[in-house]
């Protein structure tokens, strides 16, 4: 076991835990954001650099600070390590820089993008980005391509997190696509427009942190915040069958896997559940899905709430308005 202090909060975690996962065990505001790390995909992480943190003290044995900021998703904790995330201005500055880098070649076409409202990049930019861009040049663009008949690849929006290539590598039987070219010309692609065709390929839509991979059966059907998410399940021989149905009135517009609070899917679903069962009769509905209040999808989305929790939240908001940093509550709804 290793004792690690992140933003002043101490926690004991097993050896070999990454700083990011230790921070996630603490929860709250000290969790660094992550765009490329995905706990269930082996080898992910280290690429986007938004999870950079400062290690002010390497370990109890060797208390020297690390010379550079480190990627918290791929750096393991040491006993006695002291990590600064939000408490270090250096980290915030670097993170702002990374967000700016991610956005300079992003088309910022959120008004027409299907991912808007549930986009990790949007949330990240809202939290850490600048209001104005300093980039005056042309942005890189690519042609949209179909990978398979159900998935659209919009490479212009991609931030090259490599998650989808890992899905193809690890969840599906055959490696079907990867990264071609290099530098800012690199693109996710299949080998000569080959279709991605296997049972779990649809999961690359869910792991995509931006709108680069979208579900063709849902494209342009509705803004995501006009839909009502329902938890539902069915008996499926290929996967767990636990999904979220995105409803508009009685119509199932989209089926997706369930994401946790860090936007990660723990139980991947098969393509049959995702694409072929778009009638409510196929599913056993468990109830409305909890959506975090910070999300735009939560608007008009009523949930039963405890009054004392509500009071705490109002107090928190007042404190926040005064400019004091206040840790976010764990969950507001029941």
């Amino acid at each position: 076991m290793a004792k690690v202090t992140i933003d002043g909060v101490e926690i004991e975690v097993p050896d070999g835990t990454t700083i990011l996962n230790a921070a996630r065990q603490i929860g709250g505001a000290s969790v660094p954001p992550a765009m490329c790390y995905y706990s269930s995909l082996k080898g992910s992480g280290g690429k986007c650099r938004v999870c950079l943190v400062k290690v002010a003290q390497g370990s109890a044995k060797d208390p020297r600070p690390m010379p550079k900021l480190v990627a918290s998703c791929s750096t393991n904790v040491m006993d006695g390590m002291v990590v600064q995330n939000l408490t270090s201005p250096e980290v915030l500055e670097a993170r702002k820089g990374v967000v700016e880098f991610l956005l300079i070649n992003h088309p910022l076409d959120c008004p027409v993008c299907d991912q808007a409202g549930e986009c990790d990049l949007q949330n990240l930019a809202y939290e850490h980005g600048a209001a104005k861009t300093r980039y005056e040049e042309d942005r890189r663009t690519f042609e949209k391509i179909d990978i398979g008949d159900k998935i659209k690849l919009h490479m212009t929006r991609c931030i090259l997190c490599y998650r989808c290539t890992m899905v193809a590598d690890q969840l599906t039987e055959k490696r079907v696509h990867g990264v071609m070219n290099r530098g800012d010309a690199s693109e996710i692609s299949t080998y000569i427009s080959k279709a991605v065709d296997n049972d779990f390929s649809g999961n690359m839509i869910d792991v995509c942190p931006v709108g680069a991979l979208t579900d063709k059966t849902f494209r342009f059907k509705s803004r995501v915040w006009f839909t009502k998410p329902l938890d539902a399940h069915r008996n499926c021989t290929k996967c767990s069958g636990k999904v979220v149905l995105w409803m508009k009135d009685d119509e199932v517009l989209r089926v997706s896997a369930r994401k946790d609070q860090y936007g990660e899917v723990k139980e991947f679903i098969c393509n049959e559940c995702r694409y072929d069962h778009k009638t409510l009769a196929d599913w056993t509905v468990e109830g409305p899905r909890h959506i975090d209040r910070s999300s735009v999808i939560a608007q008009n989305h009523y949930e039963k709430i405890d009054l004392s929790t509500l009071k705490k939240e109002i107090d928190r908001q007042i404190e926040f308005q005064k400019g004091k940093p206040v840790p976010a509550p764990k969950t507001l709804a029941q």
Partner: protein
Amino acid sequence: MGRQLLLEHIAEPGIETFAVYRKKGGYASVEKALKTMTPDQVTEEVKISGLRGRGGAGFPAGMKWSFLDRKSEKPRYLVCNADESEPGTFKDRYLMEKIPHLLIEGMITGSYALGAKTSYIYIRGEYMYIVGILEKAIDEAYANGFLGKNILGTDYSLDLYVHPGAGAYICGEETALLESLEGKRGNPRLKPPFPAVSGLYASPTVVNNVETIAAVVPIINNGGAEYAKIGIGKSTGTKLISASGHIKKPGVYEIELGVPVEEFIYSDQYCGGMLTNRPLKAVVAGGSSVPILPADLILKTAKGEKRLMTYESLSDGGFVSGSMLGSGGFIVMDDTTCIVRNLWSFARFYHHESCGQCSPCREGTGWMEKVLHRIEHGHGHMGDIDLLVDVAKKIEGNTICPLGDAAAWPVASAIRHFREEFEYHVKYPEKIKNPKHFAIEPFLSEKKLELVN
């Protein structure tokens, strides 16, 4: 001229053949090491010699060898990094082309020290013709019993392979090189684990530059202590410098570390002075990725001491008033050079060579290149200069591998030392329309103009 340890016999006709090389005392280090020394003794000699990595970072080679995980049951590998692609550096090419057996001899001795049974020379794809030269030399070494099973009748066996890359600068980064050697896309790995623990095929691996491995030969022949006598302080031995730019005699020179920079530029033994006797403007001392220094700072340090060709002296003053010895790509510029154009050319290179794995480097290198293109072509504005400094600062240190740093340092240093020139480009776009604008009328800073008047 100082002592020549690597290039001593370079002028000998036929030195690229085994027969001539052997007659000139070649492969003596292999005989000495295999017959009279244990692998640990060889490593110890390299440690005593104080040899520092010649690829750019200058990390002590003996130390790197001693980090190798010798307890592991996995096979160990020695990989030679011949992916020399830094603009301004061409010493490895010269060495491999002219005297290939020196590298192979170093590989055998080095592999013996590390206990490697298989070793690789990873060579950049653009050096395809050298692959042929090396393979011919390896065949000769096999035929004469210096490679293969039971070398020289001892129980040590070694196989040596040449593996050409596909032409990517990033594959000179050691972990990207290993990925490429394994047949994957040449993306640098996250460190730790370092190659000494988990390198090629997840086995303990040492990656060394061509010149570092070649330097093992004189170290074993003459002894580490003898080698350490050459040079100053922690910069021991000789170093190949690829001199290019506005000098009378560009080429590869072997210098004893500690030669004053002034002597190196102006002495007839080395560069032979400025090409058209114009004044020296700036020097990039160690390949395109190290900070550029103006004439006054390259000849003397900020403290007023004479600057020497050593790792320490060139980096004296940190990045504020110093640079690095790097890989030894010594680019000299006279006052007709436009620093902005030169920097744009470097930035274009890094933009083209970024692997695209991590975001600061992928996006930042392209951004810097575009802004520099704009300034150089007369479309810049004053804010661009600070923007460049800021972008460079945000790339530096935040990337997976040192390519981000290598792209950021030249930009930051050029603006630090030549800010007036950038401002001139922004203020007088009509004067820089001709691509050779400073060749027509050299740039004089306003400070200097005051001094002249």
